[in-house]
């Protein structure tokens, strides 16, 4: 996007709401990072690889589960991505082109994800795919997207151990969440002993592995480590074990329906999290999950993530307002939803920096791309395609929101293959 174009869009949108003004500022900030180019460059110039780009439009794909068991989790991401696209279009689009999207349903079924990503890349020739939620679905998409050289913007915090040239990871990888969380618990709460608990699949197991190494490095103790099958609903035994071991911190990465059962049963077993005896630190319960668990059941637990809906900064206030305006006042926004929202914006920034929609050209310019208007504050793309971001600790309130109690001073460096933690 060039200087003249920005002023033009500034003129046409300048009289709009404050929200639009901020978008304009955003456009300007993106512009700072880019060299001046022609107003709306010709299609042949910006698209040499046959992507679905016309003189006025560019097509992207959204690929999440809107049916099946994962729909619960993925709907927020779809909403955020659509909102970002709408806002980008309102601010003039990408390289002067309005974004159109093709939405496909992964149906909580991993081959379907592979199939649909192939369709998006081969039939629709999309310029980017925003999608996937579980690691399994990402792993299913990965070979396809590498084969056809697409670009996936993946929103979920995940276990790391991956660094594909064809994926941008807009959520945190495990070390970003965990190290900051444990350090905080040790420094401010003087935690000495930890109990690791998770659902039985790759993300909790990898996370707990990293947590255990880190705890041991600090010279402290892990007194228990436990996994339950996905969907498990009886946690009385582990609650007893926890009572027996009396850890200072329960480090929990339980997901899905099990969460509801776990926290309700903890509460029923007489554990009051506000007492912080033991303190519960989770990396899996976002505001979205609290809606299903019930605020009163998790009041007092701490979560270690990069985003909370209650973050107090102007970007976030605008984002929350826009999200509620689009989808209703009772919406809550969790960490992943915000990360999904970053996807289209980062893509736009990269395209404009590269001056092209071509995947190969975008890939070259990723490192160092900033997004100053991110609801979480500020993010920057690392050369390993993950984001530099701050990690925050929030304490759950009875109304289902987190109160931010701590924030890392520096941006955490993403490290998907952490030395010494494997």
């Amino acid at each position, binding site marked *: 996007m060039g200087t003249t174009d920005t002023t033009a869009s500034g003129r046409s949108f300048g009289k709009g709401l404050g929200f639009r003004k901020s978008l304009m500022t955003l456009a300007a900030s993106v512009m700072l990072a880019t060299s001046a180019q022609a107003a709306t460059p010709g299609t042949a110039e910006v698209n040499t690889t046959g992507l679905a780009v016309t003189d006025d439009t560019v097509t992207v794909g959204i690929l999440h589960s*809107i*049916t099946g068991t994962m729909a619960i989790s993925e709907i927020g991401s779809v909403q955020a991505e659509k909102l970002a696209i709408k806002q980008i279009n309102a601010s003039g689009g990408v390289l002067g082109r309005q974004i159109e999207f093709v939405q*496909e*349903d992964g*149906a909580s*079924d*991993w*081959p*379907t994800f*592979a*199939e649909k990503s*192939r*369709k998006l890349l*081969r*039939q629709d020739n999309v310029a980017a795919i925003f999608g996937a939620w*579980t*690691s*399994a679905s990402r*792993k*299913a998409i*990965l*070979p*396809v997207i590498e*084969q056809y050289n697409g670009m996936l913007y993946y929103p979920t915090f995940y276990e790391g*151990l991956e660094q594909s040239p064809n994926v941008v990871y807009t959520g945190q990888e495990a070390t970003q969440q965990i190290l900051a969380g444990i350090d905080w618990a040790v420094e401010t709460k003087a935690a000495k002993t930890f109990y690791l608990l998770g659902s*039985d*699949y*790759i993300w909790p*197991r*990898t996370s707990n*592995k990293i947590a255990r190494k880190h705890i041991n490095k600090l010279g402290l103790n892990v007194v228990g480590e436990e*996994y339950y*099958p*996905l969907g498990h609903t009886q946690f009385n035994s582990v609650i007893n074990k926890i009572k027996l071991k009396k850890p200072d911190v329960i480090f929990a990465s339980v997901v899905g329906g099990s969460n509801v059962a776990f926290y309700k049963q903890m509460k029923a077993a007489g554990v009051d999290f506000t007492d912080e005896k033991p303190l519960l630190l989770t990396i899996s319960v976002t505001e979205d999950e609290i809606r299903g668990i019930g605020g009163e059941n998790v009041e007092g637990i701490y979560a270690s993530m990069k985003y909370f809906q209650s973050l107090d900064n102007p970007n976030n206030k605008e984002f929350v307002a826009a999200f509620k305006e689009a989808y209703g006042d009772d919406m809550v926004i969790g960490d992943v939803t915000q990360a999904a929202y970053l996807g289209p914006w980062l893509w736009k920034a990269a395209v404009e920096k590269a001056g092209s929609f071509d995947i190969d050209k975008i890939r070259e310019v990723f490192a160092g791309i900033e997004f100053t208007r991110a609801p979480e504050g500020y993010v920057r793309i690392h050369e390993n395609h993950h984001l530099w971001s701050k990690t925050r600790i929030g304490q759950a309130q009875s109304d289902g929101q987190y109160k931010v109690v701590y924030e890392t001073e520096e941006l955490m460096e993403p490290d998907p*293959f952490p030395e010494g933690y*494997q």
Partner: protein
Amino acid sequence: MKSLSPLKWFASREGLYYLALVLLLVAVLPLVLGPFRLNMVGKYLTYAFVAIGLVMCWGKAGILSLGQGVFFGLGGYSMAMFLKLEASSPEATAIQSTPGIPDFMDWNQRTELPWFWEPFNSFSFTVIAIVGVPVLLAFIIGFAMFTRRVGGVYFAIITQAIAAILTILIIGQQGYTGGVNGITDLQTLMGWDIRSDASKNTLYFVTVGLLFLCLFVARMVQNRKLGRILVAMNAQETRVRFSGYDVAAFKIFVFCLAAAFAGIGGAMFTLIVGFMSPSFIGIVASIEMVIFCALGGRLSILGAVYGALLVNAAKSGFSETFPELWPFAMGALFIGVVLAFPNGLAGLYQNYVMPLEDRLFKRSKPELKTAAEPVATRPSAEKADNYDPMTNTCSPEKS
């Protein structure tokens, strides 16, 4: 069954049905569909293997297994393990702390290949395992259950529990199995890239070829005395036993046969889709496989192929256009098939299209009715003396 010369057989009604299926799969679909859709059809066909097996063991012999996903998965995992080992050469995995083992093992601090992975370095062992492992498990389950005369509903529920056990086990032992993500990022089969369009095309035709091989075996079993005993067993197990047949042995055989088919289907599935994960083993996947068979017609092996194709095509089509409506449609399909057309498409065809054909072509009633085996069982007969709702599936036709 009278034996016909091959030429005459192809001119017979049954032969024409097979010819039509060959034409559809070998000529029509590859010509009409692009490589992307054709690959999807290939995937659907891998489910048809399971459906054919289910026709044999459920439709014919009355053994409903809700655990066919287990055998499908075992075949698929065998193939995936071979491919994964090939993809994990020391050079390709040089960045790992232990090069030469699959990436997920490295992430889980395994430093050497587990013993049960070792044999999967050999392709010939893998091919044997694809059929052998499912058959072995089927034999153990079948032997334990059928010799004790466990049948019907109990069998269905126990196989379902086995599917649940295997899923939890695979997910829990991720250092050995890849966990919930499954075994992913499979690239080559003995140096041959399985991901290119050309190879996907080849895989499709290999699948079609294997499918007809399985159809041939199934047809052979069904048309021999063996097949008749299976049907008889379904209708009147006690009488077959009193006639001196070892009912358990027949049941074990047909269950193993179905497992072998499912294993082959699973292996082709892995090749076509490019990965294998526990979600194809579980209860939901296994029950869906039963519906492919039920829709096509539980008594017709050809119907099973069409059933697998149609349900999956409908699933893709529906979920592309009306994702919200798909579960409703699928649910209605289950109920509708069971209530209104217990013999599925094949039954409909037999009841409505066949008479029409007869009139059109002025054929005399042909002696071949194998495409949809005529209903030989009468539930009412057994109701009178020893009807047992727990152990028997009865003939679906009411009227």
